[in-house]
Every structure is written in C-alpha cells, then in structure tokens.
C-alpha cells in the first residue's frame, strides 16, 4: 500500500530552520530520518516545504477568486513537508512516523493514498 505521511510542526520548529544556533541540528535530524527511509527503499516521493508564512491560499467563490496571504487554516501546527511511502500495512508506517523529528515536536498524520483511477 502507499501511504502519505504529512509532518505538522509548531512555529518554534520552523523558527529553528533560520536560527544559526539550531539550524544544523534541525536539518541533521531530518536528513538522517529521510536517509534511513531511502536506505530502506520505501520512499515513493516526498518534499519539505517552505514555512507557512510563504503560503498563499485561493478560494473560488461565485466565480471570483479570493486570494489570501497565509495557509488555509490558522492552527498551532502547520504542514512542513510530506512523504509518500510504499509499506505493507499501517503498523509499519506508524513505526516510521514515530521516528520523524516532527513526531516529538508536533505531529505526523498518516493517510492511505487513493489507488490509481481506472481510466487514469
């Protein structure tokens, strides 16, 4: 099965990326984690994302575009990146999720990926 892990981080985690005193440890943790998943051969795809203050949200209402600065929802934790994995079951995915730096600092959501559409 394919499953998507989305990493949700609090503001303090995003702040570490730009703080010279913390950036090395922050990125080192993610590099090691993603390296381990690559070594296990389970990665389908994935990416880290720029911080939420770079986000732009669009809604189409009555045919008109409503473009807004910032992420779609103003929550304590924001999407920081995602990985799509090929794993046998949820328990295996949970074991990988538990090793993510975001698991301790924020949260990791796991969602099964829809299988390809029949006429896709």
């Amino acid at each position, binding site marked *: *099965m394919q*499953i998507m892990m989305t990493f949700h981080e609090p503001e303090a985690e995003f702040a570490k990326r730009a703080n010279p005193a913390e950036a090395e440890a922050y990125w080192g943790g993610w590099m090691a984690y993603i390296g381990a998943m690559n070594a296990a051969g389970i990665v389908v795809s994935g990416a880290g994302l720029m911080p939420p203050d770079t986000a732009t949200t669009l809604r189409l209402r009555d045919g008109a575009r409503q473009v807004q600065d910032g992420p779609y929802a103003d929550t304590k934790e924001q999407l920081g990146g995602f990985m799509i994995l090929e794993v*046998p*079951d*949820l*328990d295996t995915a949970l074991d990988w999720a538990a090793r993510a730096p975001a698991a301790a600092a924020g949260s990791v959501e*796991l969602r*099964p990926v829809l*299988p390809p559409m029949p006429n896709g």
Partner: protein
Amino acid sequence: MADAVAHAAAEAAARDHYGRLVALVTRATGDPASAEDALAEAFAAALRVWPVTGVPDQPQAWLLVAARRVAGKLRRHDKTHAAAAAALAQLAAERAGTAPEVLGDARLRLLFLCAHPAIASDIHTPLMLQTVLGLDAARIGAAFLVPPAAMAQRLVRAKVKIRAAHIPFALPDTRDLPARLDAVLAAVHAAFTAGWDDVGLGQAGHGSLSAEAIFLARLLVAGMPDQPEARGLLATMLFAEARAAARRGPDGRYVPMGQQDPGLWRDDMIAAAEAELAAASRLARPGRYQTEAAIQSLHCARAVPDAVRKRVLADLYAVLESQAPVMGVRIARAVAVAGAGQVAAGLALLDGLDSVTMAAHQPWWAARAHLLAQMGQHAAARDARDRAIALARDPAVAAWLRTTGQ
C-alpha cells in the same frame, strides 16, 4: 416447508457460529469488513440452495467454504500484488495449520485488530461484539445507549478505516504488546460494564452483555495464558457475575453487597474466579485487574471476619488507586476508608475530587450521602441523597437510594 427448515438452519448457524466464521474468513481476506461481506453472500446463497438440496450435515462448514469462495472472487477483483501475496500466504497457513489452533489464533488477532490505536477507543468494544460474537448493531447500541442506526454507521466507518488504512490483522510485536493488551482488556471490561449503573459502593446492577464479555476474556486467556492481567480481568468478571442473582430481590429491588444472600451466589463461578486469580498471582506481575479481582475475592470470602475484611479492603483500594487512578476507583476507595472506621478521612478523599465533574456524577453523591450519614450530618446527607436519586439512570438503584435515608 423446505424454506422454513433452511431458514431455521441458517439462523442457528448465524447464532452459534457467526463469530468463528468471521474470524476464519478474515484469515483469507485480511479484514473483517470483507469477511462479513463474503459471509453475507454465503448466507444468501444458503437460503437459495438449501431449500432445494436440503440442509447440509455441517451448515457452518458449508457456509465457510462458500464465504471463502466469495472472498476469493472479491480478491480477484482487487488486483493489487500485495493483496494476492497476502492471500497466498493465508491459504498456505491454513493448509499447514490445524483447525482448532488456527481458530483460536484468528479470534485472538481479531480482538487486537478491534482495539488497534488507529481506531477510536469508544468503538473498540462494539467492534469486538460485532466481529467476534456477531451481535447486531441494535443490541450493541442498546447497551451503550446509542441509537441502532448511529451504532451501525460507526461500526461501518470503523471497518472501512481498517480496510482503507491497512491496519494489519496480526498480533502486536513484543515491544507494542503491553499497550495493545491494555486496550484489549479495557474494551472487554467495557463490554462487561456496559449498561450497569453502580452506586459508588463497589457494586453494580445487572449487565446485559456480561456473558459476552466473559466469553471474550476466556478467548484472551486461552490465547495468552501467560498474561496475568487477562486472567485478573476474567477473575474480576467471574466474581461479579457469580453474585448477579443476589443483586436483585424477587421484586426487582436492588440489593447492596452487605445485604445479599450468599446462598444465591454461584459457587462454581467463584471457584473458577479463584483459580484464575491464583494462576495470575503465580506469574508475579501485579496489575489493576488482579487487584480488582482480589477485592472481589474478599467480598466473596464468607469466612473472613467483618472487621478484617474492611481493613484489608481499604488497603487493596489504596493499591488499586495507585494502579488505576480513575474516578470510580477513587470514590470506591473513599468509601472503603470510611468503612474501615476512618469516616472523616473518607469524606476528605471525596472532597478532594474535581467538584465540577462530580456535580453530575451519581456515585459521588451516593457515596457522599452514605458517609455524611455516618458522620451524623443528616441534613447534608439528605441533600446529597436527593441529588444521587435525581441522577440515577437505573430505577432500581434510585429506589434503593430512597430506602437508605429512612
């Protein structure tokens, strides 16, 4: 005529073998939702075929073969490689395994699947009751005070999640076992207490699912004989069930522990409970369910002098509170402390609980009324008793509370 015979045979098979059939077909499908779909088709086929061919000698075996064939067809529609590989592994395992052992193992795995942390904990027990025992949503809903349609919907949602999220049909590994077993024990315990209304005095009314809960606990003990808490839970429930007949008077009146007629207790069940508790103790890993069983054992021990019993009870409740600091236990401990002669200390324990939560909690008011009366504060006791009566869901308990103030 042939139709009626076929219907009766199918009904009997559903009643006696549904849980076993779901467990066995789940071994082939990997998830109970598909297994139940396949079984539903097998039952429909039986109602078409049996009136013509006659009811087979072993209806449940016929249904199993039919359901597996349907499951195989469903699998072929699902062409993913992973599903095929899992199916081949299942078939190989079934050929290699002996039937009774495989059956026990499959049902054990179902229990753990139903109590997986990726499924909301309040649906663990209903899922077990439906997939392992074949209870319908109406009966489960009645025990949990949820309308049948809403319960059916929540069960379907949980089963869809199991399939979509690929929650594995497997026993947890050693590292995860303690936490996963706790969830299974809690779900079985919840089946036992569903529909009960205790009055905070360490006793309860009659539970409509108690036999089902004891059956589930027996499955667990048979599958994991080295888990002392599983045995402790089974012992706790057997002790409580042994006194079920004594808990209501002939007129349906609620009878508290101290006034029960021990002649109505089931000695065979008490003996079975003692045996489970002894086996658990030999494993030398204490836990909350073993402590609860020890408390129940003490209640059932007729030879113990009353003063000794009360003192030991207070000690056991202190242990239990350290293992399981939940509301019901903390209230029961306060009552036990008062019972051992320290009424003011018991009342202080009650007052120490969160007053906002307790304001709407009937057992807390009942316990408070009981202790205030012992302190001679009769006006305050009467007020507390009135609050308890107003909050009681079970009319028999309310009626009993009314008698306590007279």
